[in-house]
């Protein structure tokens, strides 16, 4: 209908404007709604750790408006300003668990990244034959470990560790955690190495470097972003791990999640101290999440796009 076209255009233009505006509102509305859903539990935990019993019961939400913040929750952890200088058994306990978690997750991630990067590099460059297994089979063997649910390993490990007196030790947990994140590391690093051209190593080999020399001096620096990504992803998973820690530790090597879980039952409704403890347990990861978000996204995206 060419004769009505001019009017159509004007109408469509205005309609388009309104539609564009409506879609903007809808998009930002949904974005904000989901932001609230994501952040409210964290906000709730922080504010609750500064509440007193009546504040909790009245459902006060906003500090300084609804209620005056008190250090009650943090005092029970021994981390409030007036108790920070004093001796505190709770704080000592908390710090011990915190160190356990840090040591275990850092070393397990480091171990997994070292083993996983080596294996991924080898698989992306050379062809192997172990018995009937060739490269795709070996890759599949490593990646299939991801399917293995922790329960299957848990009870045999419990018995094995008991015999080896590795129960309730950090070493035991480190080995097990490294095993659980190894497939993820291999997955990310395989992508990373596949994107590096082999000409680089060829040049290095011609220049007289050995294969390990070329790997360590030329390839590793290029693959560093992938390694950081897989390290951080492993760190998140191992820091939060609860199932194995609950089964395999008793007193010495207890990690933070186990401590939080054990307090849930015993403390009843002393919400402020639970909130303080929960928040202290998640704060390192919130910091990592905000600061290193780029790497986490890179790591998780590695597998999605082929």
């Amino acid at each position, binding site marked *: 209908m060419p004769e009505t076209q001019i009017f159509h255009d004007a109408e469509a233009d205005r309609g388009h404007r309104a539609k564009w505006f409506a879609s903007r509102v809808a998009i930002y509305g949904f974005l904000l709604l989901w932001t609230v859903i994501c952040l*409210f539990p964290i906000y709730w935990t922080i504010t609750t750790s500064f509440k007193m019993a009546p504040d909790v019961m009245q459902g006060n939400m906003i500090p300084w408006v609804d209620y005056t913040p008190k250090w009650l929750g943090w005092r029970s952890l021994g981390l409030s300003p007036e108790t920070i200088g004093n001796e505190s058994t709770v704080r000592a306990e908390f710090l011990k668990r915190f160190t356990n978690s840090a040591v275990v997750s850092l070393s397990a991630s480091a171990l997994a990244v070292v083993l996983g990067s080596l294996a991924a590099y080898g698989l992306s460059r050379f062809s192997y034959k172990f018995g009937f297994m060739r490269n795709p089979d070996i890759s599949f063997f490593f990646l299939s470990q991801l399917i293995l649910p922790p329960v299957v390993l848990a*009870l045999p490990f419990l018995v*094995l560790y008991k015999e080896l007196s590795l129960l309730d030790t950090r070493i035991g947990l480190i080995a097990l955690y490294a095993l659980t994140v190894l497939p993820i590391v291999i997955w990310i690093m395989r992508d990373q190495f596949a994107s590096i051209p082999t000409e680089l190593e060829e040049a290095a*080999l011609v220049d007289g470097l050995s294969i390990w020399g070329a790997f360590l001096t030329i390839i590793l620096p290029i693959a560093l972003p992938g390694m950081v990504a897989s390290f951080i992803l492993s760190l998140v998973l191992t820091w*939060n791990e609860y199932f194995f820690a609950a089964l395999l530790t008793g007193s010495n090597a207890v990690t933070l999640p186990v401590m939080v879980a054990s307090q849930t039952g015993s403390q009843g409704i002393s919400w402020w101290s639970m909130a303080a403890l929960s928040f202290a347990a998640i704060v390192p990861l919130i910091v990592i999440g905000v600061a290193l*978000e780029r790497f986490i996204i890179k790591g998780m995206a590695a597998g999605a796009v082929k």
Partner: protein
Amino acid sequence: MSNAGDLLHVVTADDISDRRRFFGRALIWGSFAALVLVALLQAGDKLGWAEVGFSTWRPTLYAYIVWAVCLCWAQVIIRGEQGKRVLFVLPAALFVISLVVIPLVFGLGIAFSDWNLSSPDGRKFNGLNNVRQMWADPFYWNALGNMVWYTAAILVEYTIAFGLALLLNAEIKARKFFRVAFLLPLMLSPVAVSWMIGKSMLEVRFGPLARLARWLGWDNPSFFGSPEMAKFMIMVMDAWTFIPFMMIMILAGLQAIPKELHEASRVDGASGWRSFWEVTFPLMLPASITAILIRIIFKLKLADIIINVTSGGPGGATDSVTSFIFREYRDRSNVGYGTLLAMVYLVLIVIAITIFMKLADRWMNPRY
């Protein structure tokens, strides 16, 4: 990515003398003999044939580690340049084999025995008794059924995650802020989440969500009272932590789609809705399948939230297989039966995942 043939060729010539080869073999077999010797001594000690004075199996562990190191070293000695290449994969392979295959084989042994860690009798082989017990255990079947429900919830999670990824992929301001905010739930430990949401925000009297429910007209909100509601709440909490994971994977897929395709579809006159269903969604299928597959794998491990919020209640309605076995061990120390349940679960998972992957493969590469 082709896996056929080396991408890098051997450039150095190896000449390995017979003596060197012999030394390498001697290293492997010597350390292996030492391992066998130590293991035999330990077994003898355990069974009371000889007093050696080992209190734990640690010496065998050390002998095993020494053997593993010798095995890696000997690769280089015997095979030279080729051996150095094997050295990339061998440590990881040995690590996985010793930590997965050995416990699995050992676990198979436990699965067919009557072994209660709290009873002094120790381990007794009891054939298929555990299988019979499992067959008649309504709680285990119930937990397996629950897993089907929990897994089915992934479809809803996927829809939400896809929506969020589309939103983040749209032309918006402050994209980085929203991305970080959406990512945060994934960083939180499930144990902390189960307190933050399950125990405090859903608390019936003072929890903010209970208040919200009352304000919306639900007089007596009870989130873990009825089986369906409790199951639903567990699904919601698990979804809350893991939606960011799927969202990031889908977002990565969306960003890999060339802009020209959308422009072309717009020029061809497709509306937003049609261009989504006929351009974006089909192109996203591979990334979606990967995201869903990984999410299923993680979902099958679901336990932490259930253990900490409901411990399976009310009446086992929220139990996942993992949390059920966890309690089987925690409450009854029943290692033998628990291991059998876990093994059966593993077999079921492997079958289910294989079928899923075959179906996905068939669906994505149809053979006419």
